[in-house]
């Protein structure tokens, strides 16, 4: 990794709170208050309704990845990724585009950030999904090269052969599980 610091003092954004759909102790579809005797899992066992993978779930997967330059902060805190930047193709429900915004247009870490999102999703999404990763239009000086590189299977695979790179990547991904399971 280069020792150059691209953005020594980035702006921090408050993480969005996960919205609660119902009251904490109210059960869906019931007029009775939860009496604490039953758990969520019993509940889940009873309903067969499938829950589709959505924007929020994909965002949960990538929000807590650490920023390679500021390890103590997540991509979400630096507003590199956000839920609205994850979009599904209306025609093909298995095609997803994930957009991210580098903190500064000359950020040399952008490829690495894209790669970490790519690897996280490769590991965590079912294989039927086709994921397109792009930088937000106009947010980076070498946007085209970057997009091309991130969506080139061969180049992603080649990058993962590099043990030093993989090591840093694992470190950034090691936080990815962190907050996603708090609720």
């Amino acid at each position: 990794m280069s020792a150059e610091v691209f953005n020594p003092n980035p702006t921090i954004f408050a993480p969005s709170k996960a919205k609660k759909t119902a009251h904490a102790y109210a059960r869906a579809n019931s007029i009775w208050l939860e009496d604490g005797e039953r758990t969520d899992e019993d509940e889940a066992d009873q309903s067969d309704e499938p829950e589709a993978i959505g924007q929020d779930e994909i965002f949960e997967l990538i929000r807590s990845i650490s920023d390679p330059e500021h390890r103590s902060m997540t991509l979400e805190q630096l507003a590199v990724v956000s839920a609205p930047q994850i979009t599904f193709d209306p025609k093909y429900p298995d095609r997803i585009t994930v957009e991210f915004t580098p903190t500064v247009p000359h950020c040399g870490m952008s490829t690495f950030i894209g790669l970490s999102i790519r690897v996280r999703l490769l590991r965590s999404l079912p294989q039927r999904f086709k994921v397109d990763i792009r930088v937000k239009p106009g947010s980076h000086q070498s946007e085209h090269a970057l997009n091309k590189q991130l969506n080139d299977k061969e180049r992603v695979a080649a990058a993962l052969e590099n043990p030093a790179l993989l090591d840093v990547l694992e470190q950034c991904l090691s936080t990815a599980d962190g907050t996603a399971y708090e609720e």
Partner: protein
Amino acid sequence: MERIDRLVRTWIASEQEQEIEDTVSEIAQGNATLLHIVKSLGDFLTSEEDDLRTKGVEFLSLVLSRCPHEKLNRQSVRTLVTFYCGKLEDTETIIPALKGLNTLSKLPLFASSDAVEVANALFQHVKMRVLVHSQRFVVYSIIDNLVAHHREAMKNMGDEFLRGYIGLAEGEKDPRNLMMAFAIDKVLLIEFDSAKYIEDFFGITFCYFPITFRPPPNDPYGITTEDLRSALRSCLHATSLFGKLAVPLFLEKLNAGSPATKKDTLDTLDVCLPVYGAGVAREFARKLWNALKLEIFQPTDPVTEEKALKTFQVLIQTIYAASPEDKGTENEIVGLAKDACDECMEILREPEKSQAKHAIKVLCAFMSTTPSVSRYTLARAVPHFVKLFLNPDELPNRAPTLRLLADLIEAARQSMSQDPEVLPDDGNVPLLPYKDEVLGILTVGLKMPASAYPAIDALKSMVLTPGLLTHEELGFIVHNVDEVLQKDEEESDLSDVSLDLLSTISSFAPSHVSGNTLPMLFTALPDRAPPRDAEAERVKYWRTLAALRKLCTQPDLFETLVVRFSTKLDLICVPSSPIAEGEDREPSAAYAHSILKTLADVLSIKIEKGHTDVVKYVDRLVPRLYNLFIYSALASEERPMVAPDPRLLAVAAQIITLVTQSLNASRQETFVKAVFAAYLEGDVSHLVDGVQKIPADKTFRPFEPSAPTSQRNLLVLLSAAVVPLYKEVTLPVPDETKFLDNLLQWIPVHAENAPQREALIHLIAAVVNRHADKLDDFLTSNVHVFWLSHIADSSVSSDSRKNAIVVFKWITKALLVRGYVDATKNVDRLLELFDDECVSWDAARAIGRIPGTDKVLTKRNHAVIKILYAQKYTNSVLPRIIEGAKTSQSSRQNAYLVALAALIKSVPKSTYADQMPSLMPLLLRGLELPDNEIRAGVIETLQAAATSDDKENNIVTEHAASLVSTMLKNSLVSQMPSVKVRVAALRYLATLPSVVRYDVLHPQKATVIRELAKALDDPKRAVRREAVTARTNWFKFTG
């Protein structure tokens, strides 16, 4: 004399222990003196042969070290000192001579003049470099003795002694010797006039900093890194003279050291700086700040950052504590505090940036330094934040601004005395001068969603700062937070933190909350339940109830809550216009249930906190509940009522149990008398109290065979009153055995539903648990008859038998918990049922669940509980289950597996940990049973076993391959319909990589990753989440 000669000669030839002991005993008995020994040794001591001289002196030193002290006189000590000092010159005798001197230097007869002589001789003749570490240890011991017992004489030796010692101590490397040397160094530095040799002392102490010693395995002396570190540290801060020499060295270590060195350096600076003093601190202030700044603003890890802040605090304290304390010096702060503050303020002009977080930490650290510095810091920072907040251009940055301000206010609070008894006088509340403007911007911040969170945090810190806010100001805050509560329409955490603030305020100033917040909340509660489809209104009253639950634990507020809720319950359950036939009663019942549940929750929080006001609600709340439910049950025989719903009864029972728990034995006795009068004799007059009058023409007889269901359902409230009784309380019945037997007969014949059955089962269990010693007849004959007629008899319907097994299980449990010896005999009976296909699994589950915890037989409920009952039970039952599972066949074997799965789920892990090797194959077979509940339980047990400690991991390793394939099977939706099992299996898979060596699991890795890819597409979100974690762990798993 000849004997001594002989002993000496023998020893010189053989070097055996025996001769030494014999010689010592000769001296002890007075048959010989040391003089005799010297004489006998004569030739050897002056022998031309090196070896003989060594042995001669060695013998003398050995005898001397064991010789009783009273056998020595002043003269002999004197002679021996001179003799040994002379022997130091001889390279062949120096080692035994040192040993001899070591013994002598501890003796009371050893005079100061001897000490000087010994010291001089040591400095003159001992060359440390040629001695091995254990011999050097003797030298240090001698010096330690000299310094300990003859300190004045050593001081009088002056430079000679210090120079000599430094010469000896230089270049020492052995940890045990260093421990000794550091202790001596410390004394010399503190008590001796060491100024002239300070550089030499610096040389022989600081060269060891930082300690990087790692104790070798099986170190016989057991010296740890920490021992050395703290011994050295006590030298480093022994004198302020080190200051100028030491700080540059510390700076160098800070700039270039490893993380461990940095931490050690910071800790050492913390203790050294105050000793080195303000002068040195000021001299190096700039350089230290620069080094610390790096650790604070670009932290490598949180611990170092924390330590750097601490050191910085110490530095500021050292510099400014010395200056005389007088108020009004805010503007005169100069030097480091001002410079650092300037730098931080510069950064804080951009509160939204990441550096601001570090800058505020520095300012927060200032708060706990000296009063003048903290006043200065607040004077700079608070007006800055206020200005920033009010600047229209900075509107988007209000939230981060308040966050920083909140941190500072909290730091200011923590800097004050934590003793609640000490009220600070006006001048000592640092934030006081700014409270109006701060309160102003905080209340503005409250109104915006983003900045509301930091505003509430800041308000909470202010509220908790003693002596800061007036009564009126607290009211003002409550008023503003109420508005936030009211406006918060969507379900957010904001309500939670607002309520938290309000309940903080109510804990010491309840009047604002009871006068302001509570009326607002009570008004929000409707008098009638919203209809079934009015989801929004229902959510609204739930939220209001949740708010009340959070606020009303304080005694005054709880009293109001009980009064208002009792009235509300009457309004809902007995409305003025009667309920029409066929009207939907469920929404009303659900509303009443929510209210009762809130009461129960608050009560249990209060009991948790040890509030004593719970007791009085046996008169204020409990009679009203009984009244409402008995009235409703009787009235429901004619018209539809809301209250007789089992779910409401369950919560009411919970409340009654909670209140009864808190009574003392004699109050319980009168209470239970009233309850029994009502249930057994129909006399409710002492039990009930309330608006609705119990109709006189109806009788309350729930045990009558003809009693309607609504009356029988009320048995739950009878049981609720008995379950928490002390064992001293006798039941108000003429014959307990007969009473219990009646209940036992009543259950299978008259009980109509599960709540009725459970109520009586719990009642029987509670009574048996308290009074088993008086119930021998019941436990032998009555229970035996019950077993024969309701369980063993296979002509009885299987449902009825299953219910009876539950009764039997509870009786056994009640006995086991109190440590009754025969409890396990009942297990034998249950084992008899294993061949009976109809009930074998029920019997098996009962065996497993007997030692499990429950909500009835608890400490809180005053049950008689012997410690380790679960352990004893497991010790006796588990081997039988294992044996049975191994030897029996098919269905019988399955029953044993069911019992095993139930047992390990209900007892603590420690009770079966040592059996794990034989359990493992059985548990794996248990995973094949066609019961999802059992499978999930088994997987959870395996999980607990795998994560707890490393001892059993060999077992996991041994079965790794089959565990992986079984878990994979249980984790895919195509093969396992139960979400619970899938989640448990995936969690187990996620754990495996951290407990099993890579080379064992390597062959499975590709399969697991491939199979888990399917689990990623599970229809359930909760399962997918576990799959992601599991798969990630396997990806990272490399050799």
